[in-house]
């Protein structure tokens, strides 16, 4: 599938109807989402014929992008049922199969080995500090190949240090820096859109045999 075509399909998905502030619900736009998955597939071969998990899947954009690029099994996890229902109907609209689990990522207990790749746009932790790092911690335990994630550029050093030192990542690499428009979903945002600098990361977890869970 061409990048433009992927971006177009992602642009047609329904997004949050009543975004919940405390869960930092804003979608990854089709431009960034398509590039994230396209890079994962074309530069690293982490999507096609793989098992992919989408952490905090919201309305399913990243997971569905993985399915469109040929992932064999995609699981979306979110703490919010309303989002999961939208995600599920988005999957039906595209005629794609995707599994969903309603859970809190922080309390996820999963058999490792099966998931190859985790993709996520975690809450940046503007509401609850460290929320993105909680996601990353679990993602690096669950994935056997790679984790793709977005984090605020201002936290770059912290993310790198924590991933390598505390979360057992064998590599942590910023693939590119993006401008992320967090739309004015909430009344307390003064400006119409808050333009945040965000890094797209690729982390490689320790291989299965070396993990101690």
């Amino acid at each position: 599938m061409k990048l433009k075509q992927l971006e177009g399909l992602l642009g047609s998905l329904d997004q949050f109807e009543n975004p919940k502030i405390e869960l930092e619900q804003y979608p990854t736009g089709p431009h960034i989402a398509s590039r994230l998955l396209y890079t994962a597939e074309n530069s690293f071969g982490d999507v096609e014929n793989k098992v992919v998990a989408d952490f905090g899947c919201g309305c399913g954009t990243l997971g569905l992008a993985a399915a469109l690029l040929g992932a064999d099994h995609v699981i979306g996890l979110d703490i919010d049922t309303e989002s999961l229902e939208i995600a599920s109907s988005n999957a039906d609209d595209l005629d794609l199969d995707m599994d969903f689990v309603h859970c809190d990522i922080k309390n996820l207990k999963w058999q490792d080995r099966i998931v190859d790749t985790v993709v996520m746009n975690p809450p940046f932790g503007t509401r609850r500090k460290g929320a993105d790092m909680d996601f990353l911690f679990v993602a690096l335990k669950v994935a056997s190949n790679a984790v793709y994630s977005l984090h605020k550029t201002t936290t770059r050093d912290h993310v790198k240090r924590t991933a390598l030192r505390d979360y057992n990542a064998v590599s942590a690499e910023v693939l590119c820096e993006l401008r992320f428009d967090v739309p004015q979903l909430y009344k307390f945002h003064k400006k119409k859109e808050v333009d945040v600098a965000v890094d797209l990361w690729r982390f490689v977890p320790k291989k299965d045999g070396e993990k101690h869970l």
Partner: protein
Amino acid sequence: MRLLTHNMLSSNIKGVTNGFPLLIEVEKVVEKQVDFNEDFLRNMFPKIEWKALVEASRTMGYTELPENAESSMLDSDEFLRKFHHALIELHLEEGALVCPETGRKFPVNKGIPNMLLHEDEV
């Protein structure tokens, strides 16, 4: 929810040590046809907990999987098709997943298991 997803979930209640596999209570099963992909099945086979898959598929009314399996069976097309069907075509649509240690039920509605914990279970 496919049985592949079931094969990786375990009960995450505080204090539970043997939370895998979750038992299944069936209200409704649906089957969705998926293209057969041999490479995927070969790749998945060593990662799957076979016993859990056999039990789960039986509970869902599919009794074709052999009790024990080894990698040499992957040469049989018949075996692969059964494995394919159980792993990714059977969906638990309505019912519950049950913690094998505590009996706590995690409801499954519209194919989505609710694994959220109560405050005292975290």
